[in-house]
């Protein structure tokens, strides 16, 4: 992973729909927040679109802290997308 990269992680059914558990991408131009990244990822293909379509059921963590749509995303960050948690 280079300094300009984002480390993306997917869990549970998001992982299954996206078709991978993780990937490293170059921080896309114009992406400054979690909301921007979500919109950009939806355009990457049908798997991504299906996984991320219903924003109500998508959660995010940036560098392992829960994040919201306005949370900044910077090169070098670890960004995870996942469904609402169902532990315990």
């Amino acid at each position, binding site marked *: 992973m280079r300094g300009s990269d984002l480390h993306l992680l997917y869990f549970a059914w998001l992982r299954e729909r996206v078709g991978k558990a993780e990937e490293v991408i170059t921080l896309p131009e114009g992406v400054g927040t979690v909301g921007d990244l979500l919109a950009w990822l939806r355009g990457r293909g049908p798997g991504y679109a299906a996984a991320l379509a219903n924003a109500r059921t998508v959660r995010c963590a940036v560098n392992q802290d829960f994040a*919201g749509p306005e949370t900044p995303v910077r090169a070098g960050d670890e960004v995870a997308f996942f469904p609402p*948690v169902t532990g315990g």
Partner: protein
Amino acid sequence: MATVRVQAEPFDVGAEMAALTAGRTGIGGIGCFVGVVRATGGITAMTLEHYPGMTERALAGIAEQAEQRWDLLGCTLIHRIGRLTPGEGIVLVLAASGHRQAALEATTFLIDWLKTGAPFWKKERFADGKEAWVEAKEGEGLCPSTPLGPVGPRPLYFR
């Protein structure tokens, strides 16, 4: 001071209690909760996925928060991952204190948070071989009812 573990292996409640109380003389009570895999709706097994790294951090953070909020002499959080079958223990909370009220309130707080704020996901397997991810109930997972504190702000809806 807290013991926090994410593990595939079963836990032994008696052994964990003994470890928690060993060498601590002020303990007057231990609150405890064991979550058990239910065999409802024809479930034959369950698979637990987590977010390695974040989960352990989140568990340590909530344990620290409980220790700040109540006068605890120690607490233990163990959450299992991987494949489990009905009747198996899935999560263990122990909270030791000089007094029962603190021990029981902290136990309730910790299991509420583990159910609604910790990055775990359950997939159920049914007798016919089908599998399905468990959906969070409204009010659980969607909007954690307890402050997440050290592990970050509440997850927000993307609208």
